[in-house]
């Protein structure tokens, strides 16, 4: 299994790269030029906080119990405190799971663009990781007989459709409902300020996702020989499925966009990549390549439509965490019940392959539990912060720009080129600041 251990070291680094910098770039490009640094900082600070917290109690809460009785919602938080009794030859698995915790928390940040106090985010991040993600990771990934979603319900989730994407998507929705809309939304123009960053981030996310999905293999063999055989066959399947679903989702998103709005856009392609990756995450081991293409196509098309819901329903999910991660996560997790094959990782046939509706029911129940759990816990944390520290920056600060107000910086110095004058934002000789309806001066 030497090859497996070597691969896990690489996979872990790949998944960390998904947050720092891939997600930060993906979100940063979509935000406004006065908020891009804050948007990227929310990912970077999440990595720092959640990483240390994970080693302290996260691993123990997720995987601290024995295989027979690890708790329904979480395992013993003190059993493996600070990796007590965990030997260093297991550290790579701790680090791998840590990177999942980090990106799940960071995913939420896209919804709260432009307006969340940095201090409130710094408080929300560890509380949410501790009370919402670590338990959910236990319920889904630990898979003891008692763990709720995997053990008791028996829902399949290969790499985190429920624990990562539905979890983050629901949290994003709850948080924007508590935060409220941005000043001027949706009347005011808030278009993405740099789509090349977003295209770059989406591409890096795709690359990193091979670590995320392919690295999520769980061995079931009794001997090393059996496990080696599983490693070869299963990684081929998950790698191919991850690739094909993503490609299909690009096409699905662009097709819907072309039909509804007349043009195939670069933001549509970048969004399609992420929607496809989200949807194949739970299903990567369960379906064959035709199933992966179908799930990717459906996820791309459904998410392309779902991002318009916020305008109809009136919630300011700024960068569409709900439309892409919650909806894409539901699509992928539920469709396992339709497209899974018995030779896949879950060993059951879905509806389409004669397995009946049993699996579909398990998947739907797993989704429902994840939504309710994440919704309730996030609401408690969000309300607690809202009525103590407060969630939002002042309205005039939001208009001026959160980068300068919260971090004392502005991302771009666009005026030095002509005439060698002062910098952008507040630092300029004339003290210029964004005032036009276009968002920032350029």
């Amino acid at each position, binding site marked *: 299994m030497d090859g497996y251990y070597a691969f896990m070291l690489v996979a872990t680094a790949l998944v960390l790269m998904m947050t720092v910098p891939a997600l930060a770039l993906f979100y940063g490009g979509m935000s406004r030029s006065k908020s891009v640094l804050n948007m990227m900082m929310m990912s970077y600070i999440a990595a720092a906080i959640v990483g240390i917290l994970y080693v302290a109690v996260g691993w123990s809460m997720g995987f601290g119990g024995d295989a027979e009785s690890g708790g329904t919602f979480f395992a013993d938080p003190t059993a493996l405190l600070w990796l007590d009794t965990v030997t260093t030859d297991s550290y790579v698995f701790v680090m791998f799971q840590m990177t999942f915790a980090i990106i799940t928390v960071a995913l939420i940040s896209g919804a709260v663009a432009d307006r969340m106090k940095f201090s409130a985010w710094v408080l929300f991040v560890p509380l949410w990781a501790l009370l919402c993600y670590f338990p959910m990771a236990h319920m889904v990934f630990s898979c003891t007989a008692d763990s709720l979603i995997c053990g008791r319900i028996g829902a399949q989730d290969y790499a985190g459709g429920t624990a990562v994407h539905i979890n983050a998507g629901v949290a994003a929705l709850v948080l924007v409902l508590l935060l409220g809309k941005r000043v001027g939304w*949706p009347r005011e*123009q808030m*278009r*993405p300020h740099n789509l090349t960053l977003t295209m770059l981030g989406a591409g890096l996310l795709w690359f990193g996702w091979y670590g995320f999905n392919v690295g999520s293999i769980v061995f079931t063999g009794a001997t090393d020989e059996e496990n080696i055989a599983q490693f070869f066959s299963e990684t081929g399947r998950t790698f191919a499925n991850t690739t094909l679903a993503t490609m299909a989702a690009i096409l699905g998103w662009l097709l819907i*966009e072309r039909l*509804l*709005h*007349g*043009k195939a*856009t670069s*933001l*549509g392609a970048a*969004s399609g990549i992420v929607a496809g990756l989200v949807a194949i995450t739970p299903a990567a081991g369960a379906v064959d390549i035709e199933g992966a293409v179908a799930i990717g196509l459906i996820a791309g098309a459904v998410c*392309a439509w779902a*991002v*318009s819901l916020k*305008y109809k329903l009136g919630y300011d999910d700024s960068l*569409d965490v709900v*439309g892409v991660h919650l909806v894409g996560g539901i699509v992928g997790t539920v469709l396992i019940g339709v497209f899974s094959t018995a030779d896949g990782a879950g060993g059951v046939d879905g509806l389409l392959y004669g397995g009946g509706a049993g699996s579909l029911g398990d998947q739907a129940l797993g989704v429902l539990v994840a939504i309710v759990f994440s919704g309730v816990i996030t609401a408690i944390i969000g309300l607690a912060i809202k009525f103590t520290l407060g969630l939002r920056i002042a309205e005039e600060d939001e208009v001026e720009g959160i980068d300068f107000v919260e971090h004392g910086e502005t991302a771009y110095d666009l005026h030095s080129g*002509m005439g060698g004058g002062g910098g952008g934002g507040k630092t300029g000789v004339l003290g210029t600041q964004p005032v*036009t*309806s*276009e968002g920032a001066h350029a």
Partner: protein
Amino acid sequence: MKLVTAVIKPHKWEDVREALETFGVTGMTVSEVSGYGRQKGHTEVYRGAEYDIALVPKIRIEIVVDDDDADDIVGIVVKTAQTGRIGDGKVWVSPVETVIRVRTGDKDEAAL
């Protein structure tokens, strides 16, 4: 003395600068500006949301010249910046009372 102000399409800026230099204009003030006239803006779509981009980017050129040169310079700008389509811009001429060169204190024609 006259102030010639021209608002033109950005991609015509290099042509206009070359033509003015050939004529003998040795300096000018140039800024990137935005606005709209009959061209109006356009619509962009991001994740299905339509954005009306009301303001169109333009280049504004300002040159202070001798009274005798004003008409020629206006003619050059109009000739080189013209594409014949909506949005080509405007040129206008206004009187200038006094010009002083900051370095030497020279006044008026001597300061041009």
